[in-house]
């Protein structure tokens, strides 16, 4: 029926991997990131086992239904909110998780029109395109990429530290943000 792959509850270890990532990069836990989004006191995460272990989060109401479906040994194709995936003990956030984090974290860079356009085509960001930051960014930090209206564009990895002094963005590299995933994905791969 729905899939040969299997949906199961997330393990403690897997949840720790996600929370460690989120706290380190965005200073927030999965629960705090999603409670409002899911209109729920609690957030329940499930793993969809496959080549990647896809992670989904749902609220209490949906949990009741999922439990009933799993009880019948059936597995949904997808459920609730797509959190991201775990591969080789590494968490990769989904586009949607970045979208949900926009109002929850200061770990962002703001880019100009040119930077936004290039990023949406899957390209990296030059330091000259960064016009502001939410807070100082560490090298290798995973950050949100926003446009000058604070609109979400995608997720990138800082290739070097980024700081701001007297309204000037300082970084030691020409290309400063590596594209991890951007909203252009919906056109390129979304289906």
């Amino acid at each position, binding site marked *: *029926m*729905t*899939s040969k792959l299997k949906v199961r509850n997330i393990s403690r270890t897997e949840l720790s991997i996600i929370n460690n990532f989120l706290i380190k990069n965005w200073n927030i836990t999965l629960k705090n990131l999603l409670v409002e*989004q*899911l*209109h729920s006191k609690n957030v329940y995460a499930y793993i969809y086992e496959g080549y990647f272990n896809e992670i989904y989060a*749902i*609220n209490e*109401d*949906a949990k009741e*239904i*999922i439990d*009933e*479906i799993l009880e*019948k040994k*059936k597995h*949904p*194709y*997808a*459920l*609730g*909110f*797509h959190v991201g995936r775990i591969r080789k003990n590494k968490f990769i956030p*989904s*586009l*949607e998780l970045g*979208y949900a984090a926009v109002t929850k974290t200061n770990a962002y860079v703001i880019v100009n029109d040119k930077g*936004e356009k290039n990023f*949406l085509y899957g390209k990296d960001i030059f330091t000259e395109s960064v016009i502001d930051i939410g807070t100082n960014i560490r090298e290798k930090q995973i950050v949100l990429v926003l*446009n000058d209206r604070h*609109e*979400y564009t995608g997720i990138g990895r800082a290739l070097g530290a980024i700081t701001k002094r007297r309204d000037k963005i300082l970084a030691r590299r020409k290309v400063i943000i590596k594209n991890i995933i951007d*909203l*252009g994905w*919906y*056109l390129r791969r*979304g*289906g």
Partner: protein
Amino acid sequence: MIENKIFHIEISNKAKDIAKRYGYLPYMVQRYYEIFGDWHEVTLFLKGNEKPLLKSIRCNTLRTNCRELEIKLKEKNITIEKIPWLPHGYWILSSPIPIGATHEYLRGYYHIQGPASMLPPLILDPRPNELILDMAAAPGGKTTYIAQLAENRNVIVAIEKNRKRIKSLLSNINRLGVTNTIILRMDAVKISEIFDLRFDKILLDAPCTGEGLIPLIPERKTSRTIEDIKKLTKIQISLLKTALKVLKRNGIIVYSTCSIAPEENEYVIFNVIKDNREFELELLSIDIGIGANGLEEYKGVYFGKEFRKCKRLYPYVHGTEGFFIAKLRKK
């Protein structure tokens, strides 16, 4: 007996002539005479199908507010106009860029959706905390609108059988910020056999022959026979019967198709009501400010006065794809 009456067609010479002129299979034009009861109206309908339909979008309030969207699209020289009978619908009057490739589209601020297909979720009237079933969900325009109308505060079980189409369903769900949907890839007819779930509301936007889509897909003028319609009618009846099994008492079903064929619409509902012995089914009025009434009768088969409560949309009258909607309550 009734089935024979519905599917038996004697084609007149007039129907053959008109069919040739507009490039249709003759059986279709003969049926249009049975629907409209007037050759002049049939001609208006056929002429209307030759005109392209305006594109339309639905503003997605899960991601933005409609006023901001209006401003943003205006800045891009995209001319839009509010569709008066839809709370979130806009006509696209002109656009210098493809509307499926703007940054606003990627951010999920809107969805490209035909105006008629925005109606079933509105008529379903989803509320927070309800459990809702969408029985043929891909590509997700209606599923995501159900989520939007209940502000993601309900739970939607969305079923889709087709492997390719289910990907676009998931992509749209993610892009539009829908967080409350459980997607099952299966044949919807089996849901009552497998699960004990009971739903507050059900949307059955049934697979159909697409006879309302001729302005968008002119090939449809010749691509389907009456046998194709007959086959789909059976599937539609079986889906509607399944829907009734898994609907709670006093629950609501909205049945819709993008077809104007009475065989796929009034006849399906009539057939299900007629065969049903377990509970009472009531056709409910639909107050949407647009649409012609459903047919009371077709080809000598009297469905009943209450079938006027259904709504039919025609491209030549309403400027939308051809569409049918019915709302039923299980008592």
